[in-house]
């Protein structure tokens, strides 16, 4: 299991609260699966917990993450400048399996959008047709759209209608047309809505409050739809964060 002090190459502001950060180090070469995450230590004794951040893209030994400043931890992460290092654990968790079907629909909202970019790239490279629906609150909060456009057609929704279709991501599913499999990441109400709106096979990625990030503390457990082998729960950090749609109660 990898732990390494990755070197910060850059921080770039994408919207008022969303930042893109590039980090370099040998362990990045092992970050091969989209949907996995890294666990970042941002303070010595405070905050005590690491921050789980999804992998947005990987090029050789350079990792790109895209995060939103939410609280103290991400504020500290944002203070890191080029040349600083970040104690990074990862890759952690189970990521998205790459489909053998011909058309994949990717649906993302908020900070659930970044991990889908690495997925879009890998699907595109193996020849899968990629369609992407990205949901934002308003025009000023849009990010990563051009990056996704390299890999497929992108449909945008905003809650206030200031850009793209007015409404939620599910309102754009009909417009996106036929697909064989879906992948989604974002807040739970969105995951529920996408699961309900789709009759196809799919994968969801959960954003859970985590403790250890490695499966020991049981902070991020989720209930299974159908318990088996006496086990009614899964750990988002280790058994996930990606699950087959319908596997866990969201």
């Amino acid at each position: 299991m990898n732990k390494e002090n990755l070197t910060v190459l850059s921080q770039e502001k994408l919207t008022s609260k969303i930042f893109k950060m590039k980090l370099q180090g040998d362990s990045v070469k092992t970050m091969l699966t989209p949907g996995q995450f890294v666990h970042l230590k941002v303070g010595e004794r405070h905050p005590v917990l690491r921050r789980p951040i999804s992998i947005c893209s990987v090029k050789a030994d350079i990792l790109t993450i895209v995060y939103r400043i939410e609280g103290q931890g991400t504020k500290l992460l944002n203070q890191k400048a080029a040349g600083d290092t970040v104690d990074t654990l990862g890759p952690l968790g189970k990521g998205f399996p790459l489909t053998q079907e011909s058309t994949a629909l990717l649906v993302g909202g908020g900070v659930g959008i970044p991990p889908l970019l690495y997925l879009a790239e890998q699907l595109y490279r193996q020849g899968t047709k990629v369609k992407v629906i990205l949901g934002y609150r308003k025009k000023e909060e849009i990010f990563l759209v051009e990056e996704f456009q390299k890999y497929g057609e992108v449909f945008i929704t905003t809650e206030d209608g200031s850009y793209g279709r007015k409404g939620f991501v599910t309102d754009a599913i009909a417009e996106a047309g036929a697909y064989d499999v879906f992948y989604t990441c974002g807040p739970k109400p969105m995951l529920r809505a996408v699961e309900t709106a789709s009759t196809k096979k799919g994968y969801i990625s959960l954003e859970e409050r985590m403790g250890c990030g490695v499966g020991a503390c049981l902070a991020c457990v989720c209930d299974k739809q159908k318990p088996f082998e006496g086990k009614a729960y899964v750990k988002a950090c280790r058994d996930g964060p990606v699950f087959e749609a319908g596997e866990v109660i969201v």
Partner: protein
Amino acid sequence: MSRLQVELPGLNMKNPVMPASGCFGFGQEYAEFYDLNKLGAVAVKAATPEIRAGNPTPRVAETESGMLNAIGLQNPGVDHIVKNELPWLEKFHVPILANIAGKTEEDYIEAARKISASSNVHAVELNVSCPNVKEGGLQFGSDPGMAAGLTKAVKKVSEVPVYVKLSPNVTNITEMAEAVEAAGADGLSMINTLVGMKIDIRTGKPILANKTGGLSGPAVKPVAVRMIYEVSQKVSIPIIGMGGIYTAEDVIEFFMAGASAVAVGTANFSDPFACPQIIDDLDELLKEMNVSNISELTGRSWKSWEKSLS
């Protein structure tokens, strides 16, 4: 004898550092990071007679230099643990301290009887201090009479020494310690977490689904040090000290307060390599301090001694 070696009832430890119960699962996750043989002992997650699903999520919330948890003793039940979790640990030459909990005295007796019969369990730890369950746990740990009765009952059935994990959420922790010592406890673990709460000011509601949780991490360290300082002067059984230990210096402080071994909890979450790092640093630090065995430091803060530390 090495500088780090310590001997406690049932626990012959090559160094005084063990991961704390509930912060290390049953060891498998952390074994992916380092060789568990490095550890002085392992305190495994609490076992109850029945399968426990634990509390709803969110189960953790961060606070200033600490965290609140309300996992709620989720575990697969003592039978499953004895059959599936403990055997996996047999390949390591590390004593195991098995934490047990229950709703009733009968629960504790059943868990103690079953788990203490496992070949690689060297001691049991009575969890009478979990603040996150409605029944059992803390009720046994806040009444000296009940704690003593439970200790006596478990001592009767346990095949290995019994440690009682004390709660800081009491008016007089010394009274609790004296009561369980008189009832036959072989050692004490202290402290469990402090009951706390964090409110999300955006929703106006407590963050934890359980509303309250147990506070751990560097924020509780001074409380633990004070309680060990007080209790160790009144009992003659050894104390496994815990509460916000992050560094080798912290370990020294706990020993000076009166501990004979230590457990590391929250620090494992900050850094999965916390325990081996502390063990390495501790050896260096003791060498610098010219201490031939760490046990010499137990109770330094209150014992009178002739030779001062150089």
